[in-house]
């Protein structure tokens, strides 16, 4: 009745290999004793050996030899964490003709020798864990990788510099790219910047050629003013629904002459591109070099859409491109891989109320300052106070606003030090004002960054190490009247300082996009607590995600500067092109599957899967799992009340046997129940 007690089919012949890891394991675990014991006490073990380094070629050859000579059909290696060497030993098994999934690994280094202080206790724990592994492996089944074809088309979401770079690399490589951007133009945050550190090249000068190329590449379909609605499918075969929002401008007719913008009577504060520091019209392109060149009508502010009259743009448009009746369109595209490069949001400095942003006129956010100092910005690049005319005589730049602060974000936003140094330089250059930089630590680790810092130091910018307590207009001392006073503890001098200045720039941190969690859900990837997308491995797989076929690049993964974002865009593109080049891919066969005969169609599992791998067939009243979509988490397996869903490589039998094994109950005298 109890299927768990079912016997393993056939003759199980297990080889156990216990690693010394030099002295890493052997100094705390009696490895020889463990190996001897495993050979004698554990069921099904026909060979049990120890070796100084199992991962060495000698160690691996030992396994291969035993498989061939002793006819082993299961292998257990007790050594380091499987996250280090599982692949190594699986390969060894495969070389000897044993299905790699008939191998299991037990961690007696990370979980035993490195965390214990008593040799006897550690040795016992090692035995228990190995017993668990041996009991489990008896139920391991041979598995074959899952092969799927890759559609060569690719979608890139986000038209900032990371997305543009990724799209260009892929398009140059010959695959077709759908580049989807939410705003009317590609360019992202980089298009808003004035200069780029540390070389101080003009941001627009280096970005616009790339934007132009992306806009005109034959392999790139540019979908601006568009958003992804829904993603279905799996690596190699995604189906994506994209909402192309109505521009109210017929792009086939529009020449991008800009007359409509000129004639539009409605002026609106531009909260996006101008960061609230400038104006745009109700029909607008965010900036003159916008790609594509077509404007959009902001229907919430357009006089015609709000009041029903005006139509100035339509009257003046020389090509009749204005189309007030245009509706949103839903496009469906098929792609094999997706790169997310959705960028970041700037930390809202209003949240740190003591810095006065939003209350004190001459406190500026970093993006505001970028626009202020940008030659194409609202002041034509003149650095002035909010009155629009006065040149500041003294400027304070506050680092780490909203970063490295337990009240807001604990992480370092990584770009703010260099950005602040750049601001200091620009202020000096444009105004000659005295500049104070308030920092916690200066972090300038990349190429030519620290040299830039030294250069700014030489420009006589004054650096005060300390977290600013407040920015206030409450004058206390002579000379403070009419100024903004920066109250700070100078931690190098051990003094409280009050520094009166004309202007304060807050070097605000980077935050995940406000909707990053919904986006992550839409694409079936995971997010950190803050909302940064999580890479597959923080070091060795930085642009892949847990979901096959979905890659991430740029600041959506975490704060980063332009060079890093570009590198990630290119890296993600390379990963995608690698897959496209293969044509097909084999997936790890750790999957759930439904035994249809036992499925009663109760539909408990139907909303268990965030990857939409489970479909219900009304006709047969059974649920089915698409193995290419399934990621193998096993949640539906444990939800299935009928036991109809099974987990390959993590079956109930395997886990139950492992429990019995680590509790070593088979080894004790088992009490048989009898009355």
């Amino acid at each position: 009745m109890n299927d768990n007690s079912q016997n393993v089919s056939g003759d199980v012949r297990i080889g156990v290999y216990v690693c010394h890891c030099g002295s890493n394991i052997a100094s705390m675990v009696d490895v020889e004793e463990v190996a001897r014991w495993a050979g004698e006490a554990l069921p099904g073990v026909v060979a049990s050996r120890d070796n100084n380094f199992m991962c060495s070629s000698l160690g691996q050859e030992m396994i291969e030899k035993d498989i061939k000579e002793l006819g082993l059909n299961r292998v257990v290696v007790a050594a380091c964490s499987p996250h280090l060497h599982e692949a190594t030993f699986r390969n060894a098994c495969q070389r000897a003709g044993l299905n790699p999934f008939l191998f299991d690994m037990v961690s007696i280094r990370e979980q035993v020798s490195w965390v214990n202080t008593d040799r006897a206790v550690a040795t016992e724990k090692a035995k228990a864990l190995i017993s668990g592994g041996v009991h489990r492996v008896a139920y391991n089944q041979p598995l074959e990788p899952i092969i799927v074809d890759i559609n060569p088309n690719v979608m890139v979401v986000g038209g900032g510099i990371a997305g543009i770079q990724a799209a260009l690399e892929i398009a140059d490589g010959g695959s077709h790219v759908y580049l989807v951007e939410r705003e009317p133009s590609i360019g992202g945050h980089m298009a808003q910047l004035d200069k780029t550190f540390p070389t101080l090249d003009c941001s627009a000068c280096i970005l616009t050629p790339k934007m132009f190329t992306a806009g005109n590449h034959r392999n790139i379909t540019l979908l601006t003013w568009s958003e992804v609605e829904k993603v279905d499918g799996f690596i190699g075969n995604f189906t994506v629904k994209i909402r192309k929002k109505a521009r109210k401008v017929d792009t086939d007719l529009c020449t991008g002459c800009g007359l409509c913008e000129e004639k539009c009577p409605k002026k609106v504060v531009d909260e996006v591109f101008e960061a609230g520091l400038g104006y745009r019209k109700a029909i607008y392109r965010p900036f003159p070099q916008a790609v594509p060149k077509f404007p959009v009508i902001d229907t919430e502010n357009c006089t015609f859409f709000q009041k029903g009259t005006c139509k100035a743009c339509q009257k003046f448009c020389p090509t009749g491109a204005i189309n007030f009746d245009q509706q949103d369109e839903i496009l469906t595209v098929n792609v094999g891989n997706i790169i997310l490069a959705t960028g970041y949001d700037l930390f809202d400095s209003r949240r740190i109320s003591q810095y006065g942003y939003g209350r004190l006129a001459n406190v500026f956010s970093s993006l505001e300052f970028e626009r202020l100092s940008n030659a194409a910005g609202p002041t034509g690049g003149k650095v002035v106070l909010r009155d629009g005319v006065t040149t500041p005589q003294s400027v304070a730049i506050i680092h780490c606003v909203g970063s490295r602060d337990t009240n807001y974000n604990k992480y370092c936003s990584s770009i703010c030090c260099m950005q602040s140094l750049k601001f200091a330089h620009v202020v000096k250059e444009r105004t000659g004002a005295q500049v104070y930089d308030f920092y916690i630590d200066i972090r300038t680790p990349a190429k030519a960054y620290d040299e830039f810092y030294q250069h700014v130091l030489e420009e006589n910018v004054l650096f005060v190490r300390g977290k600013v307590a407040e920015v206030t207009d409450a004058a206390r001392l002579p000379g403070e009247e009419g100024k903004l006073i920066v109250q700070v503890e100078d931690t190098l001098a051990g003094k409280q300082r009050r520094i009166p200045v004309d202007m304060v720039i807050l070097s605000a941190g980077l935050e995940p996009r406000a909707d990053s969690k919904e986006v992550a859900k839409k694409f079936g990837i995971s997010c950190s607590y803050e909302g940064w997308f999580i890479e597959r491995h923080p070091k060795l797989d930085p642009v892949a995600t847990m979901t096959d076929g979905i890659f991430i690049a740029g600041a959506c993964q975490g704060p980063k500067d332009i060079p890093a974002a570009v590198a990630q865009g290119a890296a993600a593109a390379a990963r995608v092109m690698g897959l496209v080049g293969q044509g097909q891919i084999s997936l790890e066969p750790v999957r759930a599957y439904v035994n249809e005969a036992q499925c009663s169609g109760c539909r408990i599992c139907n909303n268990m899967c965030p990857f939409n791998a489970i479909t219900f067939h009304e006709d047969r009243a059974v649920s089915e799992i698409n193995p290419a979509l399934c990621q193998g988490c096993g949640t539906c397996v444990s939800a299935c009340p009928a036991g109809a869903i099974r987990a390959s490589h993590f079956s109930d039998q395997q886990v139950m046997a492992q429990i019995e094994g680590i509790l070593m109950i088979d080894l004790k005298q088992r009490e048989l129940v009898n009355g």
Partner: protein
Amino acid sequence: MADNGFEPVIVGFTCNWCSYRAADSAGMARIKYAPNVRLIRLMCSGRLDPQFVLKALAEGADGVLISGCHPGDCHYVEQNYKTIRRYELLKKTLDALGIEEGRVKLVWASAAEGAILADQIDQMVAKIKSLGPLNWKARPARAPTGKGGQP
């Protein structure tokens, strides 16, 4: 309450992406913690079938640790919320079956939180030491051998 040499055995279920890696990080950082927990790797805490917990308790474990990624951080997007739901119901049922709260514990640990996992394990071991052995295997009452006495 007295620590009369009782060393509990705790079965720990870990998620492949967070808590198992947290155990890896604890090891790499050489953080020492109580040896009483023996970990089993699952792909996700969502794979944790209440049967596994009951099995472990029935087969002699004094406690069961369930661990996974922090809510919101699940590597499979949202599966650890299902773990929370199952854990809450399991707790209620175990309570009705006379198994003290604290013997089965849900703990979140990200891959970087080796120290947190180790600390949670230490706390749990201390708690279970104070609760004493569960000893389920010895409990299923046998038939009294002799006749006589109360029914």
